[in-house]
């Protein structure tokens, strides 16, 4: 392993588990199974709220705060998931989504 790779690996291990608003940035899917998209209300982005990923049993897997553009992104395992959006005003919307390795699966959620 090169020094650069060692440094990158060490950095990854040292970082916390925090969920960046909108989701961690990516250039392409690579070997990840990405679920991403935007949340809108009446066509406008919902910038305050949360996107949660639930597994097929309905159990929580991950959550990110929505970005200012209403965006979210998850790095899932391949398969079917439920996306749940929470927003002020008691908004709670569920949507079935699926993920595959090497693909970016894109969803728009209107609440």
């Amino acid at each position: 392993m090169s020094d650069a790779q060692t440094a990158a690996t060490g950095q990854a291990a040292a970082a916390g588990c925090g969920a960046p608003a909108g989701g961690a940035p990516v250039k392409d899917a690579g070997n990840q199974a990405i679920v991403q998209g935007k949340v809108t209300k009446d066509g406008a982005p919902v910038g305050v709220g949360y996107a949660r990923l639930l597994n097929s049993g309905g159990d929580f897997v991950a959550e990110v705060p929505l970005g200012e553009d209403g965006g979210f992104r998850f790095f899932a395992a391949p398969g079917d998931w439920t996306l749940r959006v929470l927003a002020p005003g008691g908004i709670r919307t569920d949507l079935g989504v699926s993920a595959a390795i090497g693909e970016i699966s894109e969803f728009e959620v209107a609440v």
Partner: protein
Amino acid sequence: MSRSDVLVDADWVEAHRDDPGLVLVEVDEDTSAYDKGHIRGAVKIDWKKDLQDPVRRDFVDRAGFEALLSERGIAGDDTVILYGGNNNWFAAYAYWYFKLYGHQNVKLLDGGRKKWELDSRELVTDVPQRAATSYKAQEQDSSIRAFRDEVVSAIGSKNLIDVRSPDEFAGRLLAPAHLPQEQAQRGGHVPTAKNVPWSKAAEDDGTFKSDDALRELYGGAGVDFGTDTIAYCRIGERSAHTWFVMHELLGQPNVKNYDGSWTEYGSLVGVPIALGDA
């Protein structure tokens, strides 16, 4: 100890935030949320820059913690109300960390930043100016922090609670699904660990479930309330959330957080690892 000794709700914070001797602190890994808007009067603590040693993988030492709290204007007898994003993971971690260094009066805002936002409560950008103090910390309380050898020794003899998601527990994922997946370590869990994801202890809005529901949750998963407990996750934040539930809400006497967690355990040479679902 009762729930009201360790937990406050948003209405309480709005009524008491200007009380003398009370300090609101927002804790996060990414403090840009604080910079965009925070509860009026709150100071910020950066989980990484302020609480982690910049070179070694460890906490800032006692003198470093004293310098941090002195600079933020927090006194030893202040009541510190912690809140943050990620369903209060980092605030719960900071709570555990404050207790580790002997700060007595510390509480969590139930639901943290998320509940506050979902309630559409006020957030401001003004940063409060607090006069510096001369904070004195205690030596670390080793009764609430577990290290790796203790975790290996606990296999089959103490409660080990893996609070990560079922996919991380089984070894299918190496990090929470909101992060890119790492390849640096082995997947799986510590043998004999029970999988009780931190999220099962919280409602959708981030508030903690009732004591009865929490006892049923852990008891139902096979946790023995008569035995000592070690909680772990990937890096110790989510398990601080479970440490708070077990030690502070349920009053279990001997509960430790293993902050080395899976990023350490899953990289150790020669230790046993179990794969598969619970």
